[in-house]
């Protein structure tokens, strides 16, 4: 058996492709849901961390530290295997989304906080002096400027979340990786795994390039 027909076996690939595509949809479903929920949660946490009273701020900081420290795989296994002992039983999909969102929100909160803190104090003062309410100061003045700063790190976080969706296969979620390992077992050939790796690359490489491009542009624009 030569290398090519072992790792790049076209008939096996063709046969497993529909299964891989189903897996890809699941992967994107988990990833997109977690990314969106993490964005909303992260923005909320960032604003609380910056502007709430000392108690809430302390709690938010504790949340952020804990969920940035805990390994995602450990968190996922706790959510899926340990929570049922206290009567919380989540499907594999929601277990994966919950774990990914909890962690993504923590990272996103730090990204938003840094973005908001990067806006000069004079912008807050000028808008307050005009009589704008805190809400409009945020939505009209601060966030539109902060968004430009946070897009590269947020895209980076999206990449991480999408990569981490592969962990969902350990809770029996039929995501791209899980489908690939099943197809591999079925066909007794590793080609589906290679196929899955290539699909991950096709999905993520453009985002990695995009971040690199943005970072280069921003660093040029700041001189």
């Amino acid at each position: 058996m030569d290398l090519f027909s072992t790792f790049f076996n076209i008939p096996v690939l063709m046969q497993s492709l529909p299964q891989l595509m189903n897996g890809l949809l699941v992967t994107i479903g988990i990833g997109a849901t977690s990314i969106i929920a993490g964005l909303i949660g992260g923005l909320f946490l960032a604003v609380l961390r910056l502007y709430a009273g000392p108690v809430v701020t302390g709690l938010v900081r504790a949340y952020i530290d804990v969920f940035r420290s805990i390994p995602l795989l450990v968190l996922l296994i706790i959510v899926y295997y340990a929570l049922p002992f206290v009567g919380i039983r989540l499907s594999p999909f929601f277990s994966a989304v919950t774990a990914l969102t909890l962690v993504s929100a923590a990272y996103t909160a730090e990204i938003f906080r840094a973005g908001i803190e990067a806006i000069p104090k004079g912008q807050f003062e000028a808008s307050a002096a005009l009589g704008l309410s805190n809400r409009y100061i945020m939505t009209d003045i601060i966030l539109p400027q902060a968004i430009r700063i946070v897009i590269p790190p947020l895209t980076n976080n999206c990449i991480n979340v999408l990569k981490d969706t592969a962990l969902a296969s350990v809770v029996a979620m039929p995501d791209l990786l899980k489908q690939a390992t099943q197809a591999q077992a079925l066909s007794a050939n590793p080609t589906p795994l290679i196929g899955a790796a290539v699909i991950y690359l096709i999905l993520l490489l453009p985002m990695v390039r995009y971040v690199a491009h943005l970072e280069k542009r921003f660093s040029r624009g700041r001189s």
Partner: protein
Amino acid sequence: MKAPLIKISNLRKTYGQFVALHGINLDIAQGEVLCVVGPSGSGKSTLIRCINHLEPFEAGSEITVDGIPVRPGPDLDQVRAEVGMVFQSFNLFPHMTVLRNVMLAPIRVRKMSEADAEKRARDLLERVGISVQADKYPAQLSGGQQQRVAIARALAMEPRVLLFDEPTSALDPEMVGEVLDVMKKLAGTGVTMVVVTHEMGFARQVADRVLFMDGGAIIEAGTPSEIFDAPKEERTRNFLHAVLDH
């Protein structure tokens, strides 16, 4: 004599142990142009930033604007709608066009329609000589032009009081005049102006009253000729010597 528009009594402000304002008492009349001069660090910015509560001040201090107490809460929204401010560093909103900068507050705070706000903004930009640049972004304008937009932005709220914190100090010398000209025109319109400035010529020409501050206190106040031609206090004389002799 009419009741003063702004009443400041026993205004104290501290930063930790440091006392930035030592119990200031000051009344400012409707329509008055008051210039505040004094050495750097004497508390001029702190004083005017207390008037719209950009700086919180100590308990026991009291400021009212048109009878409304300056304190956190709904009163403050009312005060800030009546008190405009122009900063040394312009602080225009860089992600909005010049026109949008001027339209924003009337729409958001006064709930004015887009069309009315745009009309008012264009009129004001005309008045400060920026109408041609209405659709540009702040970064595309010179410092003097940006500061004139900042004045138009403050005026769009039709404030009763305008606070200026060294509005020409960040400008290249050739642009100082165009901003001072706009301010001189404003001084005739009945709006109350409190101007922190190092432009003694402007203060002498335009002010109804000049205030000299040092060490967080008002040392001397009077008409421009009282302060500039016959200062009573040693510290005022020293300061004027230092700034006028070069």
